[in-house]
């Protein structure tokens, strides 16, 4: 067998100069420059109008942004979101496991729950829960069809906040159930088999083997849902509950400063969403353990990397000129 002699590093340079002395000119992208310039102009126009148009009334935005009632509204929004997210995903996980169980009744109940709670509009559900006292004057804890031990007055148990939590949480559970179920189904069948062949107890299989792997596909969609909830809580203004949007609407109803108040609310929603997005990044990174050979960089590492890369490119450009 003869060796093939066309190895580029030993082939002679055409003009007699060694390759390492040749000058490298980076490829040019004129189209990219034009597009960048266009977008920059549009951006500048937007910023300019935001600053110069007095009707944005930035002074009022600034004054109300951290006003007490607004901050109180923000806190209520956070409380509503966190409680309903936890309630929704806890119940959703139970529903997903019921749906995947081998009992036809559990499957049917889970399916039925999702069907009903996804079908009825959220606003309608909220009002239904708020008016539960009309259907049942008191709620009893006791033996089914038998005597009761405790009795609660429905009206005092389910106040505005309770109705909001119930409405949002139960509605969210229907969606969460599908997300969790999809996550569980995404785990390779071989994982179930390996766990079963090792005799790992059923519950441990779920918590240690299947769910941690399912989390990889659950987290991005779940965060979507939590972000949706942050904004979705604004719908409970129909119950006159003092969360962010209701508070803002009360203020602009009184002061007639509609636009600046909407901007105040928008800024807060953006802040909340940003916080969740940052948390998402780290949660995803945590569950990526073992799924990728090397973990993706943290935003800080990436920023540093981008800066160095940018600098290198600028330097290279300078050298090319």
């Amino acid at each position, binding site marked *: 067998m003869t060796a093939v002699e066309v190895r580029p590093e030993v082939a002679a340079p055409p003009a007699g100069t060694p390759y390492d002395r040749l000058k490298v000119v980076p490829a040019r992208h004129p189209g990219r420059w034009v597009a960048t310039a266009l977008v920059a102009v549009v951006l500048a126009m937007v910023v300019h109008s935001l600053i110069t148009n007095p009707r944005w009334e930035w002074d009022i935005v600034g004054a109300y942004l951290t006003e007490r009632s607004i901050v109180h509204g923000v806190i209520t929004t956070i409380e509503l979101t966190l409680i309903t997210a936890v309630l929704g995903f806890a119940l959703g996980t139970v529903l997903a496991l019921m749906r995947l169980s081998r009992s036809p009744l559990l499957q049917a109940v889970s399916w039925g729950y999702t069907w009903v709670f996804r079908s009825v509009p959220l606003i309608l559900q909220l009002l239904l829960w708020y008016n539960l006292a009309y259907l049942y004057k008191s709620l009893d804890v006791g033996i089914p069809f038998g005597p009761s031990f405790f009795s609660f007055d429905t009206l005092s148990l389910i106040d505005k906040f309770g109705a909001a939590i119930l409405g949002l949480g139960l509605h969210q559970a229907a969606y969460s159930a599908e997300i969790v179920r999809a996550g569980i189904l995404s785990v*390779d069948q*071989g*994982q179930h*088999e*390996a*766990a*079963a*062949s*090792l*005799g*790992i*107890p*059923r519950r*441990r299989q779920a918590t*240690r*083997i299947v769910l*941690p*792997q399912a989390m990889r596909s659950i987290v991005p969609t779940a965060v979507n849902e939590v972000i949706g909830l942050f904004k979705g809580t604004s719908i409970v203004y129909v119950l006159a509950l003092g969360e962010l949007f209701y508070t803002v609407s009360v203020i602009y109803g009184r002061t007639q400063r509609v636009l600046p108040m909407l901007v105040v609310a928008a800024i807060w929603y953006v802040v909340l969403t940003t916080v969740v997005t940052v948390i998402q990044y780290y949660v995803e990174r945590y*569950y990526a*353990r*073992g*799924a*990728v*050979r090397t973990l993706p960089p943290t935003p800080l590492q990436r920023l540093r990397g981008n800066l160095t890369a940018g600098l290198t490119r600028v330097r290279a450009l300078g050298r090319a000129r």
Partner: protein
Amino acid sequence: MTASPAIDTATRPGRVEVHGVRKAYAGVEVLHGVDLVVEPGTVTVILGPSGSGKSTLLRSINHLEKVDRGFVALDGELVGYRRKGDTLHELKEKELLRQRTRFGFVFQSFNLFPHLTALDNVVEAPVSAQGRPRAEVEAEARALLTRVGLAGREKAYPRQLSGGQQQRVAIARALAMTPAVLLFDEPTSALDPELVGEVLAVIEQLAEDGTTMIVVTHEIGFARRAADRVVFMDDGRIVESGPPEQVLDDPQHERTKAFLARVL
């Protein structure tokens, strides 16, 4: 290699009996009544073309597949059932899981838990299924990983290991449960040729140590070196079985001859 005569087969655990096992998927029968006895301390290699029912048989032995007819027994204890007089009671999931720990199973596609390190893969089952103290199991797991040639890779996640290394972790994971019988389902079929050797070397070492093993494989050379008995399957039946030199070098059945002519 033949079983060492010093091994006392009467008291040693790991005797597997398969009686008239039948199994159908969606109405199509893939096992048409299989009988097989594996003596403790021996290595049985199951050969046969794809779709001949080898894997199904193996998976029936530790009840990953429920058989339609027939029985599997380990040391006289029925797998998947409890006998009370003349009636058989199907085991509950919990009892079944406990019974499965007596078999170690090594999969073609490794099926390591990707989110756990090599060490945690090995440690998980002895701790959660057998309730043994973690520290003790960890020390043992390290020794097992060393035994399969993976000392120093305890902290690696499966995806950071080569296929051959992953399969060796899977073998260590199965061994950690101190099973009576090890079942291998085409353990080298997902590996590139260079990595096959390192996995087979580990299995052959286990064979020399006298571990009871049933190995489904296409590696004829391995069968010749390590098997006490070679079983040839075709179309859901055992066509012939015997010592490797007999089945591999002097096959009696036409189907066996044809198969060996193609793979050798």
